[in-house]
């Protein structure tokens, strides 16, 4: 990664986000519903833009527990500003008062030496790792499932890309000394649901997956700043390449287990059909399911926007982003003839295999009329995107080839 350029770009954003944060904090508690999100998108049209603490105007999906969606304009650049990063909670209330003098990260279970670490300990006693990674909700774009399914009716903005700074999970486990017989590692945040009957949000990864994944982090910074409260302050798990259900926020407990973790959020929720596509024909319940895991390849056209009017003969230069489950993007192509022919896009700076990759492609409409612009990406192991959307009962893992309509005049 060309870190010099990245950091130059980031520090400008840090500054801007500091200004933004300072300006928004006094307005905490103010629900601005006068503005509706002006979108061609039928899923988003009419939803209010709201400003939550430490956040800029985001599209309100639900207020309690909060789910806030990032407007697509923020994906014109590979790095998503902290203040624009989407928010998703499963239970209410999220933590609203966090005292670092009492917060500790505990690592216990099947280990030689249980750990109890303050934020300062994490920063000073372990080597620091930085990586850029996409955090995408399993149900991003669920609102587009056809037939439609229950769940958060997201557009495409339940995703974001940031530079995460933290400590490698493997370093923490090495310090604690994992005993033989470890099967899974469980992760739990300190946010407690208001009702004791509601299953506490907790997730697990298998020991073998963790052993093969040196890039899993306990992250305490996002784009060079402490995490926004609603994105997991003071520390969250970062599982690069995997859907964000595993990126447990407000991390408090890591437990090494000698058995599969028995949590509603692993055994019942966030499961996909055990077929290679993670999909089924609409209707029947899948006979066998597995926990959702690595992200599928996706790509988006961010500019021009859906419904844009463009001039005949003038270069439009569509651009956008692409990402996958951690192999890295090899190619992005666009088509202006419904997929009969494709032209290769120019890829932007490589910020690492887990990051959004910016792309742009030369195109100029040759005649008046309506055009569809399609985009598809392929990753470094040859995985790409389908023409027909795959379906599953929970509306997870959408990665159909995206299409926008523009009119040449």
């Amino acid at each position: 990664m060309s870190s010099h350029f990245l950091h130059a770009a980031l520090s400008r954003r840090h500054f801007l986000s500091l200004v933004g944060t300072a300006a928004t904090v006094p307005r905490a508690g103010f629900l601005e519903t006068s503005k509706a999100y002006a979108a061609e998108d039928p899923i988003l049209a009419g939803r209010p833009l709201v400003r939550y603490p430490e956040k800029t105007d985001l599209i309100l999906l639900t207020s309690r527990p909060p789910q806030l969606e990032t407007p697509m304009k923020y994906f014109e650049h590979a790095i998503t500003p902290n203040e624009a990063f989407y928010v998703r909670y499963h239970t209410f209330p999220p933590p609203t008062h966090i005292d670092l003098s009492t917060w500790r990260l505990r690592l216990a279970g099947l280990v030689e030496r249980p750990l109890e670490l303050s934020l300062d300990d994490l920063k000073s006693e372990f080597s620091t790792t930085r990586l850029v990674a996409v955090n995408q909700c399993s149900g991003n774009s669920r609102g587009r499932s056809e037939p439609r399914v229950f769940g958060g009716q997201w557009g495409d903005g339940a995703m974001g890309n940031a530079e995460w700074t933290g400590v490698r999970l493997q370093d923490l486990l090495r310090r604690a000394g994992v005993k033989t017989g470890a099967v899974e590692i469980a992760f739990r945040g300190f946010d407690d649901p208001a009702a004791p009957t509601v299953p506490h949000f907790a997730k697990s990864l298998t020991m073998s997956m963790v052993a093969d994944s040196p890039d899993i982090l306990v992250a305490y910074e996002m784009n060079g700043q402490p995490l926004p409260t609603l994105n997991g302050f003071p520390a969250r798990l970062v599982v690069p390449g995997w859907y964000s259900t595993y990126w447990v926020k407000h991390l408090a407990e890591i437990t090494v287990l000698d058995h599969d973790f028995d949590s509603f959020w692993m055994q019942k929720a966030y499961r996909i059909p055990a077929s290679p596509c993670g999909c089924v024909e609409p209707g029947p319940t899948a006979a066998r399911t597995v926990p959702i895991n690595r992200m599928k390849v996706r790509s988006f056209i961010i500019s021009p926007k859906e419904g844009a009017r463009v001039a005949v003969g003038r270069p439009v230069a569509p651009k956008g982003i692409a990402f996958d489950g951690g192999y890295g993007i090899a190619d992005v192509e666009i088509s202006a003839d419904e997929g009969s022919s494709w032209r290769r896009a120019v890829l932007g700076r490589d910020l690492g295999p887990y990051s959004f990759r910016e792309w742009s492609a030369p195109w100029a409409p040759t005649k008046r009329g309506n055009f569809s612009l399609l985009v598809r990406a392929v990753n470094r192991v040859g995985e790409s995107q389908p023409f027909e959307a795959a379906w599953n009962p929970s509306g997870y893992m959408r990665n159909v080839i995206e299409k926008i309509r523009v009119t040449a005049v």
Partner: protein
Amino acid sequence: MRRTALGLLLIPGIALVLGASAFPQVRSIELPPDNAIAELRPGPGVEVVRANCIACHSTDYIVRQPRSDAKHWEGEVKKMISVYGVPIGEADAKVIVEYLAAVYGPAPANATKEKKPTKSGPKAP
């Protein structure tokens, strides 16, 4: 423009804060109230829905869901009871499902605004 102006004013303040303490020890935020736009539509049983459902989640969790028939809504109500342990009595559960199926039930066929795939769909390469 407003943000730019504010930013300029705030620069000295930020410098002071950063200079005084490397990292604040306490983080405190206040969450906004529920989204008033997502108020439940009137209908028989709406008070029962309010009494049972909105202690745990805002109404936008209901009104944003796809319009669905009684069978699907019943599945959701049962999930609230069996998974999340919400103590909803049998009689109330029945009223809630009837309300949801009536007020947020399937749209009449001629009013459906669902996007259909274009008739000349993309061709495989």
